[in-house]
Every structure is written in C-alpha cells, then in structure tokens.
C-alpha cells in the first residue's frame, strides 16, 4: 500500500491548483480571442421554464420611472434605442437568430427590466408595440431575462397589459392586482374599429361596474374617444404614398386603465405611422396651419424641421384638418378635445414624432418639442368620473 505523505498531498494540491489556473488562463485567452471579455450570469426564461445562462454584456438599463409624464425625455430616448435595436435584430434572418439561441444559454445583449420601479400604461403600451412589431416581423419572441429580479408591481402591470405574452417567459403566475387599479390587456388591429373599440369599452366599464361605479356617464365618451384615435391611425398614419419598408407593420395598439379609488379612466392608442407633423404639409388646407407659424418664422416649417413638431400638432388640434384635402375631414382631434370638455374633468395628450400637446379641461392647449421621436403617434385620453 502506498503511503501518502504530507509532502505528497502538498504536491498534488499544487498541481491541481496549477491545472485550475491554467484552465482559467486558457478560458480568458479564448474569450479575449473571440472578442468578449466578460460574462454575466443571467436567468433566461422560455415557455418551458428557465435556465441559467450567460450574457456577453450587462443589461441595457431601463429608466426607473417609466412614465411619459414624469420622465418623458429619458423614456422616449430609451424607447428610440429599443426600436433601433429590435429593428437591427429583426433584419437578421430567422434561422440565424434561432441558431444563436439554440441552447438558450447565451445572449449577447438584453434589456434589463429589473431597473424599472414605476411604469404607466401609456409608456408600457409603446414598449409593447415595439416588441409586438418585432414578433410580427420575425415570427419569434425574445426571451425574458432575469424576470425574478423585476419589481413585483411592474411585473404585475406588464402582465396585465399583456406584454409578457410578447416574450418567451416562464409560466410564473402574475401577482394579484393592486386594490382599485386595473390595466386592460392591449389590443392591436388595422380594421374592424367598432368591434375593437366596443370590446375595450366593455372591458373598462365592466371594471367600473364591479366596483359599484356607474359608467353610463362616460361610456359613450370612452367609445367615441377610442374610435376617434383608432380612426386617426387608420386614415392618416400609413398613407399609401409614404415610403414603407418591410419593417412597417401598419397597425394601431390600444390599452386602458381604471383607477377605482381616484375614479379615473384612461385610454391610450399608439401607431408606428409617419406622424402628424409629416402629414400636415400635404393637407390642401395647410394654409390655415401656416398662420400659426408666419408670425414666428415668417415662413412655413418643412417636414424635416422637428423642432416645430409641438406647434404643428397644436395647429392640427386647433384647425382640425387632415391630409385628404377634403374640408369635411379631420374632425377627430377636435372631437377628442370636446370629449374632455364634456367630462367632469379630463385631459387629452397627443404625442407625435418629437412634438407633444396636452389639454386639460379649463386650461389652454400647451405644446412642447422633445429631442427624440416617439416613433409614431400616441393619443392619451383621461376622464374623471
């Protein structure tokens, strides 16, 4: 029997340590050769569960306050980045995408939703629209990364909205709803306006009735508001003469929210269209809009001058004309403003390209222009019961 001495043990431990170090050095050398210098441990979810995986880079952090009222500049800039990344990935062939994710154990880049502490339905809708467009173009869904680290309330809101259905995610149950606040699952479409608007209206009024709140006073305002916003997207967002590529998905997306405690109902409709400032100059009655600019600029703004987007939308709201050149068209945005005036209290906000206009009952219309584009048009209507 061989006697193992202390020296033997020390020598064996030394050789084991040397081999281990050699392995580490070799792995580092390989990563450096392949271009990646760090790996981050993540949990990658798919429809069958989740696996431990690695990411080549730390996640792209989302704004902590994901709200287009309190933190609009940061959120819109972030959404522009998401749009750009998703469109870049969608250009990769589906076979290449699936080959890369074959083992579901490695991702190169991912969006880290765990940094979001507060999210509103309108901002979440725009985010959902980007991921839904990716899903429709590629026919695939991106995996949810580190969902176990997401804020519980944010996870619940994204689940209620239906955002989680746009990702490959584990089937973990969504946390129960916070008392009094409910978000309607988003819908998207192109035609059949009355059915979609009717179903969303019924979903919101049902939530009110369940809380013993009579929705009759605002039911027609909700339905009309949804119709007007959806029609605006259908008729003007994707004109036939505009340059559309194969990444254009000519749809609208909508959602709603009911806050029983504050007796408040809100709806939001978003599209990826060319935007109001782009279509305005093509209107036959654009001269009425130009009157808003001549005192300030001495001329009409061009389509490329995004710094006037806020004023352009405000002009559209006031003049109420549209791109068809027919005088009887274009009453939708003005009609939305009337809906706010009929309610006990309310607010209308229209964000299109870089411009933003909001109107609150009892106050005047205000506008501003931001640095980044929202990538289409977002119409938000909020009514107080």
């Amino acid at each position, binding site marked *: 029997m061989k006697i193992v001495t202390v020296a033997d043990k020390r020598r064996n431990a030394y050789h084991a340590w040397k081999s281990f170090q050699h392995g580490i050095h070799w792995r580092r050398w390989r990563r450096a050769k392949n271009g990646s210098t760090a790996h981050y441990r993540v949990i990658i979810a798919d429809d069958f569960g989740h696996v431990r995986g690695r990411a080549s880079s730390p996640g792209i952090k989302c704004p902590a306050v994901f709200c287009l009222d309190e933190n609009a500049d940061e959120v819109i800039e972030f959404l522009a980045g998401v749009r750009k990344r998703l469109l870049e990935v969608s250009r990769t062939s589906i076979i290449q995408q699936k080959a890369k994710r074959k083992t579901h154990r490695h991702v190169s880049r991912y969006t880290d939703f765990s940094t979001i502490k507060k999210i509103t339905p309108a901002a979440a809708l725009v985010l959902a629209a980007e991921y839904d467009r990716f899903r429709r173009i590629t026919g695939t869904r991106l995996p949810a990364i580190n969902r176990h680290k997401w804020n519980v309330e944010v996870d619940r809101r994204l689940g209620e909205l239906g955002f989680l259905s746009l990702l490959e995610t584990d089937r973990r149950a969504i946390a129960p709803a916070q008392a009094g606040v409910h978000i309607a699952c988003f819908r998207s479409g192109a*035609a*059949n*306006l*009355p*059915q979609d*608007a*009717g179903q969303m*209206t019924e979903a919101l009024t049902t939530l009110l009735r369940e809380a013993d709140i009579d929705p009759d*006073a605002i*039911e*027609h*305002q*909700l*339905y*009309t508001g949804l*119709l*007007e916003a*959806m*029609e605006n997207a*259908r*008729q003007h967002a994707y004109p036939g003469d505009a340059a559309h590529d194969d990444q254009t998905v000519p749809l609208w997306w909508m959602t709603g929210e009911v806050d029983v405690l504050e007796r408040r109902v809100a709806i939001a409709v978003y599209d990826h269209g060319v935007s109001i400032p782009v279509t305005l100059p093509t209107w036959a009655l654009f001269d009425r809009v130009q009157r808003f600019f001549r005192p300030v600029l001495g001329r009409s703004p061009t389509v490329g001058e995004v710094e006037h987007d806020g004023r352009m939308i405000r002009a559209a709201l006031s003049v109420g004309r549209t791109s*068809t050149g*027919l*005088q*009887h*068209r274009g*009453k*939708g945005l*003005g*009609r939305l403003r*009337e809906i706010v005036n*009929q309610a006990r209290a309310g607010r209308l906000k229209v964000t299109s390209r870089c411009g933003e206009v909001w109107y609150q009952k009892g106050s005047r219309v205000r506008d501003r222009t931001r640095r980044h584009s929202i990538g289409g048009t977002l119409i938000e209507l909020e009514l107080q019961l």
Partner: protein
Amino acid sequence: MITLRVADKFGRYPGGRYEDDGPFSGEEFRKSILVPALIEAQGTGGKLVVDIDGVIGFAASFLEEAFGGLVRYRDFEAHALHGLMEIKSSQSRFDIYRDAIWQYIDEARPGDVPAAAAH
C-alpha cells in the same frame, strides 16, 4: 312620420367613416339605411325621425359621412333635410351628436367627395 331607431336598425356600436374601416360604417349606414328611409318619408309626404338612443357613441367621421354625405353626394339638399328629418334623443348627453349632425349637414358642400367616388 317614420321613425328610424339607429340602435335597432343598424347597431349599438357604429364604426368609422368608410366601409373599408370595417362594419357599421357611416358610408354603409347612409347608403343602406338612411337614404332609403328618407326617400320613403319623402314619398309619403311625412318626416323621418332618427332616434339615436341606445347607441353607445358616434365618431365624428361616422356622423359626417352618414349625414354630411347626404349633401356632399347630392342625395339631398341641406335646406330640404331640415324639413324632412328630425334627430331625436331622450338623453341630454347626446345633444352634442344632434348638434354635430346638423352642423355637418349645414357645412357640407355638394360634390366635395373623394376623387374615386366622384367618378
């Protein structure tokens, strides 16, 4: 007097402007229901009462296409419609729709239609 109850004859959820926008459009309502009812009322020498109770709500484009379209497509003249038609609702919150309908009729210009429809 002939009564046309929109919710019963057409539906509780009116839609958009054109038939391409989906079912229950203003164009469909005007062509298939409103114009025949007005012709019938005209033939009997009576009035057409359009009852808008029971409908969830109307988009401005629906009302303009349905009622303003009567003048724009030269089916009827605006002054004739004032004597031939009445808009009725028992709900005060629907007064805005009644006022909007007459506004669209009075502001409509005969022949102001899309180029494809004009031919």
